[in-house]
């Protein structure tokens, strides 16, 4: 295997050879290899967050017509590093009356839950942590661990705002897990396996072209699972201060943010893996490193969409958030799975392209019908605003303060 085709596997094989050369038994070599591999992958993910924070702050800044970080280093690239150094030296205030174990376990769990998703995702044809046969179920289960982290934080802090925030977060995450799980059934059904490696290899064409309705539900549900705007009720500043992390300070507070940023990125690469073909692309089968490039390009496109989603939508009210889940997404995902199961079975003997086109048409029909039904269901009367003439401030010279006495 040449270095340029697949540098990551090349290095791994070389390291394995090195370990075997020391003269350990194969059992020990495997375990040490696992530990080193896990360390490299998890630490890589943690350091990647530094870049993600810069990327997201810069994009949000541009969306809001600001510059974003632009002082430290080229394009403000070193800003998150400076923030990280600062947060390491901040005092860790532990308020009186906290539940010590729950309070300290929460930030660790909320990062660990996201990091563990990196263990099973295939980044390219040859580069993945592990290929377990229940990959997608593992992702859902580990996602649930993050909810445990949030409720521990809210309960352990001995604070009313934190408790309200945690309860809201758990209500939201539990609710959105239902359409998430049900729409994740569609790729499993089309593939016949729960392993993420198999799901990626079976995507010909990508599942978003076969089942766009399921992909839409999956995307909205995974945005809600990350708990960001417009679904950030758990940390609504204007209502409950900062939600479940009010009482945290220093790096414990920072860990929640690391978890959140990493979760957003992880959610977008899970969407890419399950519906956008993962590492698949022209030439990725022969040259695996090209697959990693495709994977990253797709992931950053989805991540960009997620940030656009965050930057342009106002926060939901809690009843709107629950209505969207239980009255729109859950029935929609149930209908989608029934229709796909039936249509796919009825046309099982016809050609692949014909079946794909029929599934696509069925999905689009479901989406159109759902859109019509939602429009009938929502109240459309809105109070009239903005009819009155308002004075508009338009200074002649922007650089002179009014009342300063200076002449323009």
């Amino acid at each position: 295997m040449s270095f340029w085709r697949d540098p990551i596997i090349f290095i791994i094989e070389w390291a394995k050879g090195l370990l075997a050369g020391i003269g350990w038994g194969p059992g020990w070599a495997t375990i040490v290899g696992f530990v080193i591999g896990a360390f490299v992958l998890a630490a890589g993910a943690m350091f990647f967050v530094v870049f993600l924070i810069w990327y997201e702050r810069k994009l949000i800044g541009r969306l809001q017509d600001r510059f974003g970080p632009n002082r430290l280093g080229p394009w403000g690239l070193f800003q998150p590093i400076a923030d990280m150094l600062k947060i390491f030296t901040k005092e860790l205030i532990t308020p009186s009356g906290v539940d010590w174990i729950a309070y300290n376990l929460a930030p660790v769990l909320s990062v660990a839950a996201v990091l563990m998703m990196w263990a099973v995702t295939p980044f390219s044809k040859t580069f993945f942590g592990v290929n377990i046969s229940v990959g997608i179920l593992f992702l859902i289960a580990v996602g649930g661990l993050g909810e445990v982290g949030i409720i521990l934080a809210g309960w352990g802090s001995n604070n009313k705002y934190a408790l309200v925030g945690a309860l809201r977060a758990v209500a939201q995450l539990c609710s959105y897990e239902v359409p998430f799980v049900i729409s994740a059934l569609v790729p499993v059904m089309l593939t016949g396996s729960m392993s993420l490696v198999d799901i990626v290899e079976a995507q010909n064409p990508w599942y978003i072209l076969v089942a766009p309705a399921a992909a839409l539900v999956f995307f909205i549900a995974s945005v809600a699972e990350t708990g960001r705007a417009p679904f950030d009720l758990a940390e609504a500043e204007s209502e409950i201060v900062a939600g479940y992390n009010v009482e945290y300070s220093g790096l414990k507070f920072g860990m929640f943010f690391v978890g959140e940023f990493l979760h957003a990125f992880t959610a977008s690469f899970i969407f890419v893996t399950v519906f956008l073909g993962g590492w698949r692309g022209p030439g990725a089968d022969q040259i695996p490193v090209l697959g990693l490039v495709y994977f990253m390009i797709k992931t950053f496109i989805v991540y960009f969409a997620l940030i656009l989603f965050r930057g342009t939508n106002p926060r939901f009210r809690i009843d709107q958030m629950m209505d969207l889940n239980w009255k729109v997404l859950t029935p929609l995902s149930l209908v989608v799975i029934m229709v796909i199961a039936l249509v796919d079975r009825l046309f099982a003997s016809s050609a692949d392209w014909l079946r794909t086109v029929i599934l696509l048409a069925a999905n689009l029909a479901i989406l159109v019908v759902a859109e019509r039904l939602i429009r009938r269901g929502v109240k459309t009367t809105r109070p009239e605003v903005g009819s009155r003439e308002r004075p508009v401030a338009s200074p002649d010279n922007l650089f002179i303060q009014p009342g300063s006495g200076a002449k323009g």
Partner: protein
Amino acid sequence: MLNDWLYVGVFALVSMFLPAAAISIAALLSPKKPNSIKNATYECGMEPVGPAWAQMKVQYYVFTLIFLVFDVEAVLLFPWAVAYKQLPLYAVVEAILFILILLGGLLYAWRKGALEWL
């Protein structure tokens, strides 16, 4: 097969260890000057009133119950989805009937007003 799960276990331990290690380093580096006012529970600058672990809306409980129904359903549907390619039409229709019953349950909860946030 067992090796795969060993890797998952190792990865779980490592992913717990890394944030814990970072927090421990920060605890060593950071200043420690606690006082009773700084350590008081935050309540918008007021003295905290009553216990923090107070009663909460029962609504959260209702939603969790509905969630539980659908989560148990997922346990049944995942094996069905894996076996879907080999199933006869009869088994597919069977699963669709099962989902329809669940949909009926959701509609019942909806009509009963369990899905309204009061």
